């Protein structure tokens, strides 16, 4: 029995130049969801609504069983939040921030916080304004991780980090999941990171969720087929084709409903299958967005 850490239903938010439209989302406890979207697609707005920092115009938002934004104070006791546009207090030290957060949250784990200091290579006596961007991100993450929240909400947690720091952060995020009662929602441009550690993946584009499924499903169902058409052959009609590229004799199809039986279907239709390529999450996302946008302009 898996209860939901996050539940969005029919959530809408209207801005003068942007609308979040009828968003529905379910995040089961104990899983990681990666949110992928272009800039301005609505990732940050969705996350802010989740935190109760922005009130939705319509729809139900439940986080850890609490209604947002009404019960945000209670919910935030169990949520760790780090966003890309968040800054700590420059003139104060990391140590001050740590003791400030510790005084608020009873679940603060001192030993764990010290381990994170070592792992992230941070010096507590340093003032925040003296830290590099990567160090600041790690500092903010430390403050969120050390109090062992039930839900971690991260807006671009690895953006701007060097490769070593990225691996450390990914490692710490996965370590959170060792406890099956804890959940992570993160948004990222970095599709490699999302592909590596996410259980669930949600694509968001222009204020709408365009796909949401578990990661293995995505990777199983999307394929790029390279065909060689015989002179008399026709392009076979396959299910789920979202993109047709290449040339007339050498078409390349992208399908989101791949089935191994398709290979023989193609061959029977006179289109020799040269290759069946799996696609990276990035390629899947771009193909998804393109096909949607094309449908909209048609």
């Amino acid at each position, binding site marked *: 029995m898996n209860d939901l850490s996050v539940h969005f239903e029919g959530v809408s938010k209207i801005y003068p130049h942007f609308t979040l439209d009828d968003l529905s989302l379910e995040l089961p406890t104990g899983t*990681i969801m990666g949110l992928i979207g272009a800039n301005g697609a609505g990732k940050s707005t969705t996350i802010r609504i989740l935190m109760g920092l922005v009130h939705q115009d319509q729809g139900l938002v439940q986080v850890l069983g609490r209604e947002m934004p009404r019960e945000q104070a209670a919910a935030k006791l169990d949520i760790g939040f780090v966003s890309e546009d968040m800054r700590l207090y420059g003139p104060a030290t990391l140590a001050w921030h740590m003791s400030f957060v510790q005084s608020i949250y009873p679940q603060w784990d001192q030993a764990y916080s010290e381990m994170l200091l070592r792992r992230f290579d941070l010096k507590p006596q340093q003032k925040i304004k003296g830290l590099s961007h990567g160090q600041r991100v790690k500092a903010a993450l430390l403050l969120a991780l050390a109090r062992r929240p039930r839900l971690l909400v991260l807006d671009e947690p690895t953006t701007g980090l060097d490769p070593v720091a990225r691996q450390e952060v990914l*490692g710490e995020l996965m370590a959170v*999941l*060792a406890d099956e009662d804890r959940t992570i929602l993160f948004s990222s441009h970095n599709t490699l990171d999302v592909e*590596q*550690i996410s259980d669930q993946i949600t694509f968001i584009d222009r204020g709408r969720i365009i796909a949401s499924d578990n990661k293995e499903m995505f990777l199983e169902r999307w394929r790029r087929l390279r065909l060689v058409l015989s002179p008399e052959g026709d392009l076979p009609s396959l299910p789920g084709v979202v993109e047709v590229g290449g040339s007339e004799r050498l078409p390349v199809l992208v399908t989101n409903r791949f089935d191994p039986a398709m290979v023989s279907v193609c061959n029977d239709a006179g289109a*020799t299958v040269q290759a069946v390529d799996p696609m990276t999450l990035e390629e899947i996302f771009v193909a998804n967005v393109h096909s949607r946008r094309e449908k909209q302009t048609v």
Partner: protein
Amino acid sequence: MHSDLVISQTDGRPMYLQIMDQIRQRIAVGDWEQGKEIPSIRQLAVTLRVSVITVKRAYMELERDGIIVTQQGKGSIVAPDPELGSKLYDQELAKHIDRVAQLGELLGLTPKEVASRVREATDRLTTDRLTKDRLTKEYS
């Protein structure tokens, strides 16, 4: 009981397959003995920094193949099966034979042609072995 599996992001194959292959290898080589406890799905996911769902898929397929056994609430162990080593090799053979059949089809060979190619390969192997034996005898 620590994990020494290594997952590569540049390896073209899906991660769950890499995990399965490496576990199979460990067992076939004898690193992981039969009946031995293996990391739980979550533990392995954390160690490898790979999503739980991927490890879960690998474990499920391995269990379906009879390589490991998952006990409800108690984690997973290597299947306590004396035939395990040969079973693994048998599975490997089946995989490769499927691949041969696929490639044959892609190349447009008839089943007979595919079979004769396989025959050529086994013949070659026998010839090589006989040659090696003779040379060994000659020089010993």
